[in-house]
Structure formats: C-alpha cells, structure tokens
C-alpha cells in the first residue's frame, strides 16, 4: 500500500462506495414496460413485430429487451413437440462500453455468447414453455450502455418484457449482483456492483483471477419463492464457504429490492393502461 490515501479508501472507511452508495444499496433502477411499439398495440407497421418490450436501466447500465412470439418456427427441425423453443440473443451497441469501442460481433464474442446462454437458462426456468408447443419465443436483448452488470440488467429486462408480452411465467426472475473485497483493511460486502467495482473484485481485466478473497457473484432469484435460478461465481474461493454464503445472501436481498422496483413498474404500467381506459392518460400518437 502506498502511503498516500486515495479518495476511495477514505470513503470505504465510512462504508460509502465510490459512487456514493452504501454497501447494501442497489443502484438507481428504472423500468419502462412497452418501450417499443408492439403488435399488441395494433400496429400494422412491419417494424413492430414484437409483442412485448422493456427498457431497464440500473445505474448507468441500460438494456433494452424485445420479446417476440409465440410464433412459428421457420425450420421444422427446430420444433420441439412438447414445448416452445426459447431463442435468446444478446447484442451490444458499439457505444455501450466506455473502454473499447470496437464493434463486437455477437456471434463470435465469447462473453456475449455465454451470457445469452445463461439468460436462456434463466428464462426457461421461469417461462411456462410447455403451453406453446411447436412454437418459438424469441428474446432479444440490446445493451445500450454498459456500466457493469449487463447480465443482471438483461435478466430483469427480459422478465419485464415477457410480462409485457403477456407470456405466462412461473415467477418473476430478478437479478442482482453482490461482491466482496478487502478494501481499506475491512471486508466489505457490496450489492449491485458497477463496472469499477467489478474490476476491483475480479482483477483488472475482468477475466477472472483477482486476489484470493474477492468475490463477484451475479445472482438471479425468484424472490417470491426464494429460489435461486442463477449464481455465477468466477472467483477462486479460498476455502471460505462462509464468505460465499454471505455474499449470496446479500445478493438475494438485493434481488428482493430489484423485485420491488420491478413490481412497482408493472403496477404503474397497469395503472397507466387503466387510466387510459378512463381517459385520464395523455394519449400519445406515437404509442402505436
């Protein structure tokens, strides 16, 4: 350790993180259901082949999710006889991440492939796919801005978009991350890490490693039944199961907070539709 104290060290002494949050505070989260025009709203526009959409921002991370379906599968060979196929693709915009501005190819970028795969697993745990055999539900996630935790934001956005599309879900899936690192001499468990904190927790490259007692753990749960759907830890656990349990617990509490925000957003949407029917809403013509 250098003799000069950095600003972050001072903040960590009073348990405030670099962006001013307390350890167990999630980032400001806003959700917007029905962000895109959808066929559900009766548009005959060819661009609006979606049945539900949601825009979720967690802090500076912003993610747009579009759900289409259940619709026909193009190829017969892809059909499943007893349930719907879930097609998930995750993409990033070239301007999404602050560091490298390369346009990553979603079909070859390993991080994106892995995260789409995780998202697919998470969603298929929740969607009642057996209700729509031989059809396809496609979920497309576009990462508009990436300040860490894009997988969590994507899961939350996908849940909301599916709800917007009216696709039956077993439960709402909410995702939040938690982490632990040894900063300023004390162990800190923090919730909903941003990019900078993730880099601290995983080592600078973000590719794994880090020191032995740092953990970064994205978790997705179904908060109403308390089931964990996803918990992905890439850090090396130094035989310290207690630390992992604590981080997991913190993440689950974070998921509950995320759930509350999402539930409020859905209720708000419901109220909006109700009020439109009552003629109290501002009728927007571009709300096709």
């Amino acid at each position: 350790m250098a003799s000069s104290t950095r600003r972050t060290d001072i903040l960590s002494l009073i348990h405030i993180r670099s962006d001013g949050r307390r350890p167990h505070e999630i980032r400001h989260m806003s959700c917007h259901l029905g962000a895109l025009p959808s066929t559900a709203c009766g548009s005959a526009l060819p661009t609006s082949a979606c049945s539900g959409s949601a825009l979720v921002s967690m802090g500076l991370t912003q993610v747009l999710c579009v759900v289409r379906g259940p619709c026909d599968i193009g190829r017969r060979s892809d059909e499943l006889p007893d349930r719907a196929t879930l097609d998930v693709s995750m993409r990033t915009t070239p301007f999404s991440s602050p560091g490298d501005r390369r346009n990553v190819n979603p079909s070859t970028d390993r991080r994106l492939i892995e995260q789409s795969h995780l998202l697919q697993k998470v969603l298929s745990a929740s969607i009642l796919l057996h209700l729509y055999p031989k059809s396809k539900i496609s979920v497309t996630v576009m990462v508009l801005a990436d300040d860490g935790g894009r997988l969590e934001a994507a899961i939350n956005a996908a849940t909301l978009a599916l709800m917007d599309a009216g696709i039956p879900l077993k439960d709402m899936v909410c995702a939040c991350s938690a982490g632990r690192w040894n900063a300023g001499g004390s162990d800190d468990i923090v919730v909903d890490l941003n990019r900078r904190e993730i880099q601290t927790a995983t080592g600078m490259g973000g590719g794994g490693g880090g020191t032995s007692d740092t953990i970064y753990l994205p978790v997705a749960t179904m908060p109403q039944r308390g089931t964990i759907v996803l918990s992905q830890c890439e850090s090396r656990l130094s035989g310290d199961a207690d630390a992992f349990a604590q981080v997991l617990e913190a993440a689950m509490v974070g998921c509950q907070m995320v759930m509350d925000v999402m539930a409020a957003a859905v209720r708000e949407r419901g109220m909006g539709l109700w009020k439109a029917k009552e003629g109290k809403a501002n009728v927007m013509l571009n709300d096709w």
Partner: protein
Amino acid sequence: MSNPLLHHHFVLPGQVLATSHSESDGGFLRGHGTYIELVPDDDDENDNDDDDEDQALGGGRGVAGTSSSFGKLKKKSSSGGGGAEGWGNFDTSNVVMQTAVGDDNHRGGGSAMADTNDDNDNTNNDQQQEAPLLSKGPQRLIASVAGTVERVNKLISVIPLSPSIYNGQVGDLVIGRIVGVGGSRWKVSLTCSSPSSSGSSGSMKEGQLPLSGVNLPGGVQRIRTSEDVLAMRSLYREGDLLTCEVQQVQKDGTLILHTRSLRYGKLENGVLVTVPPHLVGRRKNHFVTLRGLGGKKKRGGNTDISDSMNVDNEGVDEDGDENEDGSNVDVYLGLNGGIWIQRTVPSRWENAIRADQDERAPLAETLQKLRQRHASTRVSTSMREGIARVRNSIDCLRLVHCQISPESIELVARASLDAGVRVADMLLPEWVVKLTEGTRRH
C-alpha cells in the same frame, strides 16, 4: 384517482392466489393466467406461519438464514391484498434454494448454475381448463401473468395486463392474410402482417387453411383433385386478405381455418385496421352494419367539398341514390384483432343480379357475382369518408384501450359527426380523449 379495486386485485407472476389445505377437494379451480403446484412437502402444516423460515436448503453448500429478511419484505408487500381465502397469502416458508457449485458444464471454474427443476414441476399440467385434482397434498394456485384477478365462485383467473396473445376457439371469426401457398393448404398470418416484411410472421402463430376448407368457385361439392391443388393461387394468392372461421384448434395451438360459408372469403375494396386482440370481444354476430355513417348526410362545413366532388365520379359509383343502403358501412370484427371495414352492398345490386340469372341459380353464384361487383365498383368519395371515419373511430378506441363493439364504434363516430371533426383530426390527442368520452360513462 387510483382505483382501489385495481390495486387490490392486481397480481404479479408467481404470486400465490389461493392455497388449499384439504386433501380431498381443491377449493378452487384454475382459470386462465394461473397454474397449480403442490406445496412442497416440508411445510405442509405451517403454510401461514413463518416459523420455519430457516428451512433454506443449500444444495451444494449450506446457505442458511437468508429468509428471515425475506419474510418481512413479503409480509409488507402482501398487506394490500388481504381478503377472502388466501388472497395475497404468501407463504414465506417455501424457501427452497439450490446452489450447485462447481459442476457446471460450460465453465470449468467456479461457475454455478441451478435450474429450478425441483419437485414442483411435476404438477405443471397447465393445458387443461380445469384443475385435475392431483394426487395428494395441499396445492396452491399461482398467477402466471401480471393482471387483475377475476373470480367466479371457485374459478380463479387472472386477466392479463396486456394480453397480446390470441387464443383461438372453434367458431371464432378471424381476419387473416395469406402468406404462403403450398402443400394443399394456405398459410394464413393472423397478425395480418404484409408478406413483404422479411418473412416475419408477426408475433402470432400462423393459421392453416386446408384446401378442403374452402368453397370451390360456383359452390360445387366434390373431392378436391390435384388440379385443384394446382389452381390454388387462382382462389387466394399471397397477400390476399380473407375472413375465415376457426374450424379446429390443434393441440399445439395451431388454428385450422375454413371458409366454407358464403359469408367468408376474400376481402376487397375496403380498409383493414388491426387492434390488440383482447379489445375485440366474442359476440353473437361479428358481421355488423353501422347505419347512416357512410356520408350522404348534411353535416357541418367540411363535408361540402366531398359532396360536390361526388358529382363528377364518372357514373361508376352507384351509391348516390336515395337508397338507405347507400350510407351504411359494414364492419367485420375479427377476433384476432383484424377489423375490416367496407361499404354495405346495396340490396338492389342483389335484386339486379337475381333478375339477370334464372330462378334456379344457386345462392353461391349470386353472392359470388355480388362480391365481384363490389370489388370492381368504385367507392364514392362520401362513402370513403364514412369508412375513414369508422376506421379512425376504431383507432381512437384502440388508443384509449377501450373494448371495440358496434355500439362503441358508433358512439365515437357519432360524437365526431356531432362535433364536426374532420376525419383526419380525429386522431389528434385532444379529440381522441374527447370523442371517447361517451365510452367511459358506465
């Protein structure tokens, strides 16, 4: 301002609607938007207590003590929905956690991933309309969509917030567009999306119209031959709009359609509007006629121009008589959300055609000629304005999420006539709100 009723009955996916304790009868029936699962064994007795919150089971490694905080949060959020028999009754005790650490397939390190394939899944036979009373043990009814709860005696269902999915029933009138011909059947897009839009069939499954489900020209009844298969495009080709009826719903939800009635068939010379399917309710008759909306009436100001233009319509247009039919508009309310508007075919056309042909000509032939005449006759300007007014009335109703029925369409259209609104102005926000005012007085 906020409707307390809505608040009380608004549920989210995963929310427990009701729990039945008795082993014999369920105490509830499963409606739309819900599913049933067994309450896990380990908390049979104490559904409503939160004394066994520490039952959190760790799959791979012990994770305990997380649920106490959840219990409080859940209690808080469920407090709004108190009421009869287990409304908003979260059982906090059902905390089942699974964390399988280290045995993941695609990442060698410490990646952990656990699906919720626990024992709950064996009760997911959601397709039956009624809940089959499953083997034993307490069951609970859980919402699967976000929406408002509706309850009829024992039947509990959730009306979705934005039901974009059309679930067909036998006998439904739908309006679709042909997107494919082949295999002795037509593929019908029920979103009415245009065939050019890059092969995307919209967000609904396509319907199937088999060759045996159409009337052959002239109304002859015979077995379809291979010549008929080759001549399919002469009946309907890609891009054609048609009305049809659902003949059969297959197990996987595919709709088999038919047009074996003289009322069904190709749609020409009119306007299509698409609305969310849930706005069109099932009713006795989906072919409705709105009387006196198709122009021909002296109205304020702006219609003068169109009336004067009507004079130089080259005589093609025959709506101009004093005939009552001249001002009527036909509306076909498709249950998939497609709505077709066209002029009402005047009854004297039919009389004229009948007079031309001999007595014993089949009705099918007459109607076919009538259809041809409708397709080839130009629509007068005033009638077009009437059709456009009806179209915009439907659009107004869609924008305020109001149920679309002949009465509500007529109400909006009449309101616009009374207010002297130009057809193009009807969709301005202030007019939308004003014109649909009448639909809100329940």
